[in-house]
């Protein structure tokens, strides 16, 4: 059972959930009748993509991408002890030769071990994506307020009737 748990659940559960969330969002954007619901669906769709990116950079047993003490050498040493207790995996992967830090390994006795720190790149990309999402949401809400001011409704069905029926000014 633990084997099944390890391979299917642990390895791919995050990616399954992001796909499900994305599809809920996409379905809402297309099928919901109310404009505000469409926008909530759009936001869910975007946060699901951000969830996908963040789960790329996750490493088992790794700490947050901030180097605690100013002196990297001291930092790496304390890091290894703190990890002995927590996860046995942390120990043997620390010994494993990493391409990143083999240069001048002995000179910097304890170069920072990349396996013990989460991958910062997806986090940077996602700061941008969150802020872009809010900017788009702001513009979309401004548009829906103006639509309400001009058409009197936010329901897609009623909007289409008014557009098709009355000769709305071009």
């Amino acid at each position, binding site marked *: 059972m633990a084997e099944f748990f390890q391979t299917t659940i642990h390895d791919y559960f995050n990616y399954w959930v992001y796909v499900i969330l994305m599809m809920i969002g996409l379905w809402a954007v297309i*099928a919901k009748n109310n404009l505000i619901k469409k926008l909530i669906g759009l936001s869910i769709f975007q946060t699901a993509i951000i969830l996908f990116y963040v789960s790329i950079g996750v490493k088992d047993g790794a700490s947050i991408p901030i180097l605690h003490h100013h002196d990297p050498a001291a930092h790496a040493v304390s890091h290894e002890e703190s990890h002995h207790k927590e996860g046995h995996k942390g120990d043997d992967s620390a010994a494993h030769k990493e391409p*990143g830090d083999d240069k001048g390994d002995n000179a910097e006795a304890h170069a920072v071990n990349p396996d013990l720190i989460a991958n*910062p790149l997806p986090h940077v990309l996602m700061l941008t994506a969150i802020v872009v999402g809010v*900017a788009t949401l702001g513009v979309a809400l*401004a548009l829906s307020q103006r639509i309400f001011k001009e058409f009197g409704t936010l329901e897609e069905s009623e909007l289409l009737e008014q557009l098709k029926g009355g000769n709305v000014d071009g």
Partner: protein
Amino acid sequence: MITKVLATFAVVITGALLLYGVSDFPAFGDPHSPANAGVEGGAPSISNYYITKSYEDTKVPNLVTSVLADYRGYDTMFETVVIFAAGMAIFAILRVFSDEDDIEPNETHSEGNTFTDGDHSRIIVGTTVRLVVPVIQLFALYVVAHGHHSPGGGFQGGVILGASFIIIALAMDLDAALARFSEKSYFRLASVGILIYAGFGVLCQVLGSDFLDYGILQKIFLTDGPEMARSHSMLGVEVGVAFTVTGIMFAIYANLSSRGTLKSAL
């Protein structure tokens, strides 16, 4: 009804394709996946470079801030431009100047400018907000300044600073918040923010290096090496971002809550 069927059909196909792609992914949390540890064919993994070398290059412990503001600073500049463009677009779409008839004109609040203006139901909210807002603004400045060592930075600090003005608008009314942070000043603040960011970049060019190459600024910051110059200029850039985000976040709230009239509001 047809759109619901069409939507379900499109969604199922997209989901199936995505899951088909997922089957080839490395395991979740695997430290040696291509993204975390690079591929033999390609160059050495860039994220490992960031983890091991970024402290030497920029003297900034928070790796995310160093990658955000220095290595990929060009991305972040355009992200600030996105926020600025959103503020301008919302102004262009929603802002009205002539007070033509408003839909559902809300009952106008009594003109009191004090936080509670005598209305008993607002005493609790008014007094707490009056006490909390300076602390929020102080915390926002801390978040911007401390972005190098702890999670935070220009965006988060700017949003919190903007939120402090939004709280004033919610507790009292929009006019009180606009009295403290008028429309002309928050658009000017936003423009100054981008001017700071792009100014740092052009300053590097003027001094003879590439756009946004902060190392050259050691001539100005008189630091002993380019690393500290990078750290200082990153703080400067984060301040620019905070200015823009503060201005635009409050601009978006002010326009949305008052249907563009900047008068009677939420």
